[in-house]
């Protein structure tokens, strides 16, 4: 439909607003994944990731800020009395309100003792800190489980802290390493890889084997249904179609039994082996395509003495690349997304796919590690989005045909 200019502007306006709303969750995902952890739970939220720098021990380092001090304070080295089980007193650097430090004695709140919450201990003054200065801690880009010295800290004037807009790329490295490592061996070579990489490997195994399997077997079956006429063919095809109506939950429990009997539960096999036996949807899709190929081609080949399989392999398949691409692409996407299958059949961490790994990670650490969760989610979404951009035409065509040929 051709539209007048004001109407065209109105359509564009609606579409632009709509696009912004639809794209926003992606933006928020990426922004969150690039924020340092302290910035995540800020209200109102900051739209850009920022990093703070200050000089600690003569060195310019990335730091984490605490709220400005409410009153004039001091940094002291206090002698903390030993707790039960400790050998002797230990020295500890602390920030205290200036009024809590007098005559070499500091009033210290002890977290671990309930009664006598405040005690006086000997302490030596390190420096005075004016009101509104800020305690900064060195930002350590490491996981809580990683070894290393505790962060350095100091109090500095607000003007000595430099804030830059800087993405926390480290979140991605953290997210990959956060789920731990897997140690295994392959052909006698031992390796140690982050769990996340193992999840990725498993997902690729399931997706790639599944794609090969379903494309081959569905094409074979589709050829049998589309290019050869035999008695009972249409009835059987109807049976194949009707299996699309059966919800997975109906077959779920006995399927679990089948895989258990085969000893496949806990391995990746239940997720890709069935693909080698065709799927109704793909058979349907390919049959529709095979039917459009002129019969003259196969007839000519038959006269030349080609076997039925040679016709399928040498003539029909090469002509059907677009349809095969649709099937392969859909299956890859499906395998990458699948959650219920892995949840049912996988039991050990080292066999998890990305879907299951990410869910497992969320249910264990959810609620606070949003920067890692968003980084990991981005890593899971990104390959699919990239794949989509490279195969957009195939994809849109595939969806359009499934919608039309009902």
């Amino acid at each position, binding site marked *: 439909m051709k539209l007048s200019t004001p109407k065209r502007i109105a359509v564009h306006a*609606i579409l632009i607003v709509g696009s912004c709303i639809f794209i926003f969750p992606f933006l928020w995902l990426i922004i969150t994944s690039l924020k340092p952890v302290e910035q*995540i739970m800020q209200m109102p939220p900051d739209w850009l990731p920022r990093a703070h720098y200050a000089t600690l021990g003569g060195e310019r380092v990335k730091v984490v800020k605490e709220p400005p001090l409410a009153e004039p304070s001091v940094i002291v080295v206090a002698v903390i009395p030993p707790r039960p089980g400790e050998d002797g007193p230990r020295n500890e650097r602390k920030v205290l309100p200036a009024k809590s430090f007098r005559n070499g004695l500091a009033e210290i709140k002890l977290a671990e003792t309930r009664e006598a919450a405040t005690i006086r201990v000997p302490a030596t003054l390190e420096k005075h800190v004016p009101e509104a200065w800020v305690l900064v801690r060195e930002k350590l880009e490491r996981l809580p489980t990683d070894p290393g010295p505790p962060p350095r800290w100091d109090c500095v004037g607000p003007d000595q802290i430099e804030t830059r807009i800087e993405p926390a790329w480290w979140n991605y490295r953290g997210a990959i390493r956060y789920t731990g490592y897997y140690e295994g061996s392959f052909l006698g070579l031992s390796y140690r890889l982050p769990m996340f990489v193992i999840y990725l490997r498993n997902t690729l195994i399931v997706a790639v084997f599944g794609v090969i399997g379903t494309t081959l077997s569905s094409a074979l079956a589709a050829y049998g249904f589309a290019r050869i*006429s035999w008695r009972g063919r249409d009835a059987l095809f109807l049976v194949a179609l009707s299996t699309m*109506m059966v919800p997975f939950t109906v077959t779920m*429990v*006995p399927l679990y039994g089948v895989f258990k009997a085969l000893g496949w539960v806990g391995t990746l096999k239940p997720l890709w082996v069935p693909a080698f036996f*065709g799927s109704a949807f793909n058979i349907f899709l390919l049959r529709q395509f095979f039917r459009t190929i002129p019969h003259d081609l196969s007839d000519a080949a038959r006269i030349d003495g080609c076997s039925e399989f040679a016709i399928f392999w040498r003539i029909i398949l090469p002509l059907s690349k677009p349809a095969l691409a649709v099937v392969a692409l859909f299956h890859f996407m499906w395998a990458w997304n699948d959650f219920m299958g892995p949840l049912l059949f996988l039991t050990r961490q080292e066999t998890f796919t990305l879907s299951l790994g990410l869910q497992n990670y969320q249910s264990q650490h959810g609620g606070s590690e949003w920067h890692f969760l968003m980084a990991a989610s981005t890593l899971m979404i990104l390959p699919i989005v990239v794949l*989509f951009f490279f195969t957009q035409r195939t994809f*849109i065509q595939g969806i359009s045909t499934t919608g039309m040929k*009902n």
Partner: protein
Amino acid sequence: MTPNERRNLRNGLLFISPWILGFCVFMLYPIAASLFFSFCDYPMTLPPLWVGVENYVDMACDKVFWVSLGNTAYYAVIALPLGMLLAIGLALLLNTKVRGMAFYRTIFFLPSIVPVVAMAILWLWILNARYGVLNYSLTCVGIPAKSLPPWLQSEQWAMPALILMGLWGVGYSVVIYLAGLQDIPNHLYESADIDGANWWQKTVHITLPMLSPTLYFTLIMGIIGTFQIFAAPYIMTEGGPGRATHFYSYYLYNVAFQDLRMGFACAMAWVLFLIILGLTLLATKLSARHVHYER
């Protein structure tokens, strides 16, 4: 049978033999077994024990079953029409030969390829009651902090939250509708133009009737899809708060793999199958009058 026919039969069966094998092992046997189990007490560790229709009777008396059915119906009744309206609206807008159509289409489509687990986690964060960006945007448009919905933390708002998330993935239908719209022959609009029809008249009398087979197709796919929603409640709410997002498939999974009541789960699966079949038939019946197939 002529030799030719015999050869064709042999070849045909040979070509479909992988599918036949898979169909028997991964479809036919499980369907039959599931029907049998649905009349059994079957805790997986012990062999199934025939109990007749007990599972179905239990189901009728099970409050949680009805709650989960109600929740699923609630979702379907609100989310399906809402999603279809939004998708049709977007498809109509995108079909107006505006510049940059491919760009817009990509943007609207993109959310529907996001893996469900990643989507669930992303929306957990967006919908977070305290730090979520959605509630922050609501405060920006002037909604007072006290009346902000707590989304997934309240029984009242958890379902609308999931519906909202579902609408984000509407792009898939948009693409299907767009294909349908582009198949409508132009001469229909041209003759309508000659008769002086306005945009609304053309939409109601040409576009929607011509699109009705596609609408019908997406409606049925939508019904089937809704009754199988599992990942979102499993990951985001664990069916809660209370039982506010106890979906049918979520309950079924729990009955099967948490309580190990496989017989009951199979019975639920069969009831689900019958519901889907019934609704599809109903949709076919109702649409027979309204769906317009060319030829």
